[in-house]
């Protein structure tokens, strides 16, 4: 496509990605009073960020009354200075709060005033790691779209016998493999800090491993065939279609019915359904995080389309060169 060859498009995409990365890392994360209490009681962490609206401040007892995102009211021990310099009644704040187990009070450590639209919720057990939801999940989604497009191009090749479809199928699957690898890398970094090791053979990890094997085999098959270009392309197209039959099983079905460390596995999560991937097909998560997640999907989709376009053009040039020789 012509769009992918314009410099303006590439600059816009690059800048948008940079902004997205900045947002993903810099947006404050705020939980609730019950999160802070639970994490402190379980000994996970003493200081927890809380997102809440300041309702009133009592200068005598130094207590600020807040309403958090679940509409629970909580009291935080503040100082006059913090109140005077950083907060006003009605402000939405993200504050670091130390929960004292002995006295059951919240003590203010630090606080910032935030744009209520630009905060991420604290997901139990993830904390700061929840930011990876803007990379890992969109990358997996784009990988699926890439494999789907590769298969559609393979079908088109078999119908129309036009070599260009074969090149596009190859480029789409290669980009899909790249995004699968990226999702695996971001996922295993996430797993390292969330579950303790880079690789746990969780059902979803097994699935993505098999997916890498399948599309690895696709490219291997292609390079091992010593046939005419036409026959090679036909065999590869058939294998690509057969390979795609397994993708829904690996990406959608198997991880949902087996016990998994990932959210949305057969066992379900403590405290209700998993936020995004669950059996009822509903999304339960904060609006801001969800919207930013879709922005990520959109941006990565354009990255994929651009990569696919570049690789298709490389393949076209290679074919042209072999024809000339």
């Amino acid at each position, binding site marked *: 496509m012509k769009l992918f060859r314009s410099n303006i498009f590439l600059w816009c995409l690059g800048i948008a990605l940079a902004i997205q990365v900045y947002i993903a890392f810099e947006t404050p994360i705020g939980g609730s009073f019950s999160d802070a209490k639970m994490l402190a009681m379980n000994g996970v962490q003493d200081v927890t960020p809380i997102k809440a609206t300041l309702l009133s401040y009592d200068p005598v007892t130094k207590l600020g009354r807040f309403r958090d995102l679940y509409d629970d009211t909580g009291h935080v021990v503040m100082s006059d200075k913090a109140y005077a310099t950083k907060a006003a009644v009605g402000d939405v704040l993200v504050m670091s709060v130390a929960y004292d187990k002995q006295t059951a009070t919240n003590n203010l450590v630090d606080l910032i005033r935030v744009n209520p639209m630009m905060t991420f919720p604290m997901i139990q057990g993830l904390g700061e790691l929840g930011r990876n939801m803007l990379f890992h999940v969109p990358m997996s989604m784009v990988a699926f779209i890439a494999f789907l497009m590769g298969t559609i191009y393979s079908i088109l090749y*078999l119908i129309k016998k036009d070599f260009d479809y074969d090149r596009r199928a190859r480029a789409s699957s290669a980009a899909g493999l790249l995004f699968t690898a990226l999702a695996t890398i971001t996922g295993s970094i996430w797993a390292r800090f969330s579950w303790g090791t880079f690789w746990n053979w969780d059902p979803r990890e*097994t*699935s993505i491993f*098999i997916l890498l*094997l*399948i599309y*690895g*085999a696709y490219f*291997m*098959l292609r390079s*091992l*065939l*010593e*046939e005419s270009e036409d*026959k090679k392309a*036909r*065999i590869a*197209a*058939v*294998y690509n*279609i*057969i*390979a795609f*039959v*397994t993708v829904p*099983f*690996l990406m959608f*079905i*198997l991880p949902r*019915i*087996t016990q998994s460390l990932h959210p949305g596995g*057969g066992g379900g999560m403590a405290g209700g359904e998993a936020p995004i991937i669950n059996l009822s097909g509903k999304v339960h998560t904060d609006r801001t995080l969800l919207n930013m997640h879709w922005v990520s999907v959109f941006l990565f989709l354009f990255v994929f389309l651009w990569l696919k376009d570049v690789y298709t053009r490389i393949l076209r040039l290679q074919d042209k060169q072999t024809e000339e020789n």
Partner: protein
Amino acid sequence: MSSWQGVLRKDLAIEFRTRYGLSAVIMFLLITVAVILYSTPGEQLQPSILSALMWIALFFGAMTGLSRSFIAEEERGTSLLLRLYASGESVFLGKLVYNVGLMLTLAASALLFFEFFFARDFHIRDWPMFLLQLSLGAIGVAAVSTILSALIGRASQKGALLPIVALPVLMPLVIAATDAMRITLEVSNAWDGVRGDILILVSFDMAMVLVSYVLFDVIWRD
């Protein structure tokens, strides 16, 4: 006689004459079982281990036996004749039915070996579900090996290519079947536990048979 039955009869006649497929597969199974038994003397084998071992043996047994169907055709140089004699779909159906039969025989002999050699640990608690998952798994393995061996048969380098391309494609099936087998070895009323796996097996089999039926013609005609 419709022509797919002719293809089936031809393959069966060759098999009875040479007994290549079945004996290769049974040798493979025996060796697998012997190695497992040798390396685990006196050990209690859990259902999870046993189900994984059985499906590994079945998978690689299938790769040695079932891969022959089209590759042998190419090696003997009879594929051109077959192309003249029968239509693409009858060749596919004949080969598929033959492979399903071979795979079911393989599964039955694997079951026999496991019952005999692992008599202490291998107790099937839910027979109907066990046989259901075993036959559904066997059909899926046969369907995938049929289309993929046709695919590889067209390539000039055949040797080791089939396991490489078939193993990852069959993984979802093998995982579901292994899980279902483990449950039937553990509990006597297994339907609630295996329902999801059985659904996966049925849909995988149907999808693979349909897709390969449609795609076979593309590979078969030159």
